[in-house]
């Protein structure tokens, strides 16, 4: 049974209100931070915790904070990235919906640590219900003296606002988010300068994911060292995994990093296995942008070791036989799912969401979508498969922001692991759109304990 640091009280009736959240020990971290700790102490605790950014990149949060420039007389900003739009990822929506004060409390502690007096939570525009929930929570916190002027009599001032986006996945990229927050198109900026030097309105800015900011609360309450005791190696603490696809029990789960992939997928405490008595064919472990893995490689590394839900274990083998933890957006595919169709679907997504600023991404994502469409609908040629690999290589690493990589990896990895399924679509063009042939040799054989890595 894993620890629950973020979701401990998620089932308590009324936990979305200030009063109940407070009764359950909420806002202790604000009192402790503002009354007993210096900002530098908080940064130090976050460093000790080993917390890595929960939005997908996994960069150490404390280190990111320590890069923040601190020139005198210049405003500093904390911006929460709640532009959750990565296919497979829905943990931040869950957190904001059911326990919004966890985010508000984290924003106050983090803003104090960074010396920010105005902070923004940039929420994707489609999440209007969550925006209303957060605005109500902010009003409650302010009425109780935890926001506004002279918080708890400590002399610290903080205004916190919610900013709606306009519907653009690219705004989850931190510099595109800042452009959007400034009222512009969400075109990513060239880095450097990084936001820590020149971010919102040209001022030093930290952009953190919802889950990262919420995790600061237990880190301050219990200490960074306690937090770092959870997990495995450099994957410390707990992580929210949002699980969807063909699962018996899809949903958001808080796990100790280092939980075995097999336990997460099959145990009743978490996903409960594959729905409808089917077998597992493939997994996307960290949101649509990370490489897809066939069942056998997801459950065990090529060395035969049990795969763990951690940054390092999922990355074991690099992109040849591994993947990434990413945002924790977990998608399971049963044996009937068509990998070509899924890859086309993701390619369409990235083409739709490319901001169009860089030619390789603007042109390449559309090209991949077209080629995958013709393969899926029975008009493809065998040479199309290598063409896709070629185009994906020419996008990867050649764009201002990581959206190009995010578009390339699903295509490249699907062909790497499921090439014969792409070839099948060419040789069986007339049957290609039945979508349910499911090449069984990829599937995790039942009983699941006996699988071996091919």
């Amino acid at each position, binding site marked *: 049974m894993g620890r629950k640091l973020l979701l401990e009280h998620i089932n308590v009736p009324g936990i979305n209100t200030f009063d109940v959240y407070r009764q359950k020990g909420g806002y202790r971290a604000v009192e402790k931070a503002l009354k007993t700790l210096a900002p530098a102490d908080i940064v130090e605790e976050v460093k000790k915790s080993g917390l890595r950014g929960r939005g997908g990149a996994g960069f150490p949060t404390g280190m990111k904070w320590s890069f923040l420039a601190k020139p005198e007389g210049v*405003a500093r900003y904390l911006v929460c990235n709640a532009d*959750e*739009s*990565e*296919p*497979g*990822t*829905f943990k*931040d*929506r869950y957190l904001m919906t059911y326990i919004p004060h966890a985010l508000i409390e984290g924003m106050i502690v983090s803003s104090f640590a960074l010396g920010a007096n*105005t902070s*923004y939570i940039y929420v*994707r*525009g*489609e*999440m*209007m*219900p969550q925006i209303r929930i957060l605005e109500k929570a902010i009003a409650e916190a302010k009425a109780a003296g935890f926001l506004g002027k002279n918080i708890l009599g400590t002399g610290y001032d903080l*205004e916190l*606002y919610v*900013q*709606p*986006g*306009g*519907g*653009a*996945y690219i705004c989850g990229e931190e510099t595109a988010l800042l452009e*959007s*927050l*400034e*009222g*512009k*198109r*969400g075109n990513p900026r060239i880095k450097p300068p990084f936001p820590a030097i020149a971010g919102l*309105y040209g001022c030093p800015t930290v952009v953190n994911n919802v889950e990262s900011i919420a995790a600061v609360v237990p880190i301050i309450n219990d200490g960074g060292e306690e937090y770092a005791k959870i997990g495995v190696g450099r994957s410390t603490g707990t992580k929210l995994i*949002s*699980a*969807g*696809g*063909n699962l018996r029990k*899809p*949903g*958001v789960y808080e796990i100790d990093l280092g939980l075995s992939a097999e336990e997460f997928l099959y145990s009743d405490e978490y996903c409960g296995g594959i729905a409808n008595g089917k077998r597992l064919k493939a997994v*996307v472990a960290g949101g*649509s942008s990370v490489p897809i893995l066939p069942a056998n490689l997801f459950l065990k590394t090529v060395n035969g070791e049990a795969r763990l839900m951690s940054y390092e274990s999922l990355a074991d083998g690099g992109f040849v036989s591994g993947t990434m933890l990413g945002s924790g*957006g977990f*998608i399971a*595919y049963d044996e009937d*799912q068509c990998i070509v*169709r*899924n890859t086309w*679907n*993701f390619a369409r*997504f990235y083409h*739709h*969401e490319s*901001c169009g600023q860089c030619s390789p991404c603007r042109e390449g994502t559309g090209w991949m979508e077209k080629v995958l469409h013709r393969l899926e609908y029975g008009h493809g040629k065998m040479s199309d498969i290598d063409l896709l690999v070629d185009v994906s290589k020419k996008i990867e690493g050649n764009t201002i922001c990581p959206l190009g990589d995010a578009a390339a990896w699903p295509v490249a990895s699907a062909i790497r692991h499921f090439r014969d399924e792409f070839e099948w679509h060419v040789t069986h063009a007339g049957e290609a759109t039945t979508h349910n042939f499911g090449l069984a040799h990829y599937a995790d054989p039942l009983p699941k304990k006996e699988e071996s890595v091919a």
Partner: protein
Amino acid sequence: MLRVEDTTQQHEPVTFSAELTAKFADIVSRYPQGKQKSALLPILHLVQAEYGWLSVPAMDNVAAFLEILPIEVYEVATFYTMYFMRPQGKYVLEVCRTGPCEIVGAGKIMDYIENKLGVKEGEVTADGLFSWRGVECLAACGYAPVLQIGPEYTFYENLTEQSVDQLIGDLKAKAKN
């Protein structure tokens, strides 16, 4: 290029109410002095909630209010997918069609909605009540398939043909009252 597809309706003059303008001013107060352009996205949401879409005169008025150029409003409004550049149905059903929703039947739900409403994606029903479209990931993959309806962006999860029937029936009844 500005995606204005219905030229017959775009030139009707628009005057924002005092109540709406007061909301704009409240939003502007969230940003440092001189950074009022930050209010653009939230204000466009309010304008669209009021009028159902963003006409050129409405966008010009927003530009005047924020003291920015009209082109600065057009380029933002046309970049983001939530802003409509032409009139829509009173209720716009937005069905998620990406990855996890697709593999548990989003495509069939979209086909069902198309047949039930009798209009293609992006078109408006004759009574003006409905339009529908497929949208990219709505970040609710564990509850798939899902759809949302603006301007409140009410969410409907685990869709079935029966739940779509119920939803559309309820909206028709609501529109009559």
